[in-house]
């Protein structure tokens, strides 16, 4: 369960969002500039709320009233960025292994080969990020986040930087990932994408939550 109730002032823009999600895949839906990325960054701990709380599975990650702020590296929340952000000085294998090394987890070859099979990236292990296509990069980023064994996976428009053909290429992997059972928060401005993936929708507009509920709210409310 994820509970978020935060306010944040960012220049002219004010974000005031509150929602609770039990869903396996929470879709954060809204136009660009609605505050989706700020919200997801607060869940990750990269951005501190001015006021409010973030609670994941009974663990308080942020509580400004009590002065609690768990730093990102202690949250065990995976994050897949729109621009992949693979480490350019490491090859694919080292990128995939990075989270395990940082968290000092035991080597788990079975898990690694399961993830590389799931994402079809077994053939890319010796390459450098610069030698990958956009779609391949995004699949490696997914694998890297998964292998850090997060308890929640954040995805900020993971298909946003890809053209239509590539999106179709990645989408099936995301569906597979959802069926793996790791809870996800999936940010998108594309209703069609969310209809395929999300189990619950949080609709954002100008920094406010305008609708909450099942996937059907995508058809009743408009993001713009």
């Amino acid at each position, binding site marked *: 369960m994820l509970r978020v109730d935060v306010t944040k002032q960012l220049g002219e823009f004010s974000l005031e969002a509150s929602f609770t999600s039990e869903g396996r895949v929470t879709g954060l839906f809204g136009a660009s500039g609605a505050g989706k990325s700020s919200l997801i960054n607060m869940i*990750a*701990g*990269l951005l501190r709320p001015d006021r409010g709380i973030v609670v994941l599975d009974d663990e308080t990650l942020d509580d400004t009233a009590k002065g609690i702020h768990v*730093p*990102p*590296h202690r*949250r*065990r*929340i*995976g*994050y897949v*960025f729109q*621009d992949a*952000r*693979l*480490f*350019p*000085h490491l090859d694919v294998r080292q990128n995939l292994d*990075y*989270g395990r090394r*940082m*968290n000092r987890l035991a080597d788990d070859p079975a898990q690694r080969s399961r993830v590389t099979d799931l994402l079809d990236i077994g053939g890319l292990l010796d390459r*450098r*990020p*610069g*030698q990958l296509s956009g779609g391949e990069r995004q699949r490696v980023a997914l694998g*890297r*986040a998964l292998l*850090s064994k997060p308890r929640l996976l*954040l995805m900020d428009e993971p298909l946003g930087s890809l053209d239509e053909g590539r999106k179709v290429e990645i989408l099936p992997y995301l569906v597979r990932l959802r069926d793996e059972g790791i809870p996800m928060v999936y940010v998108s401005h594309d209703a069609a994408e969310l209809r395929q993936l999300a189990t619950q929708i949080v609709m954002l507009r100008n920094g406010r939550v305008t609708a909450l509920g099942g996937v059907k709210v995508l058809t009743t409310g408009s993001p713009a």
Partner: protein
Amino acid sequence: MFEITPAEWTAILLSLRVAVIATLVATPFGIALAWLLARYDFWGKSILDAAVHLPLVLPPVVTGYLLLLTFGKRGLVGGWLADHLGIVFAFRWTGAALACGVMSFPLLVRPIRLSIEAIDRRLEQASSTLGAAPWQVFATVTLPLALPGILAGMVLGFAKAIGEFGATITFVSNIPGETQTISSAIYSLIQTPDGDAAAGRLVLISIVIAMGALIASEWFARRATRRLHGN
């Protein structure tokens, strides 16, 4: 003509030792300072920045004299170090290394600072979401990505250190076998009758060392850039 005498060898080896030690000792401080200047805003930052660059614009003889006042046997820091830790800089090769380190410090810091400023901080965010504590982010992302700048700074600093003359001779004098580097040996030789041939050999050797350092830095930079662009 090309017979290098033992005295010249002594000066060459001393110069190399002084420059290598100066560069190696200065580098961690250079990285720390570059990081501070690149990443933080604090009170007195512009003063600190100016102080770091001071040896670049001050007459070297002034820097050398200030070092003598501070680190000389009766200097504030030098006296304390000699009494408590037994470290003596005055008229020792270690003093030459200190002078070279101070003189080359601005050249060492600048490329490191620029390369840290150029790092995409979003990669560091990605690293922290994967479980890396701040020091791990620094060690596994920031430092490797700044490597081209660090190597460039080290080579520049080394080149400056090996050519340093004014501050060194003011601070630790020109003692053969202890503080006489290639530069001060050349200076002595050209003031000696019949010293031209020996001076010429040392000039040639300093050109070879300088060229070698430049070629090495170019090679390192190219390699590191290739690594960073992920090909």
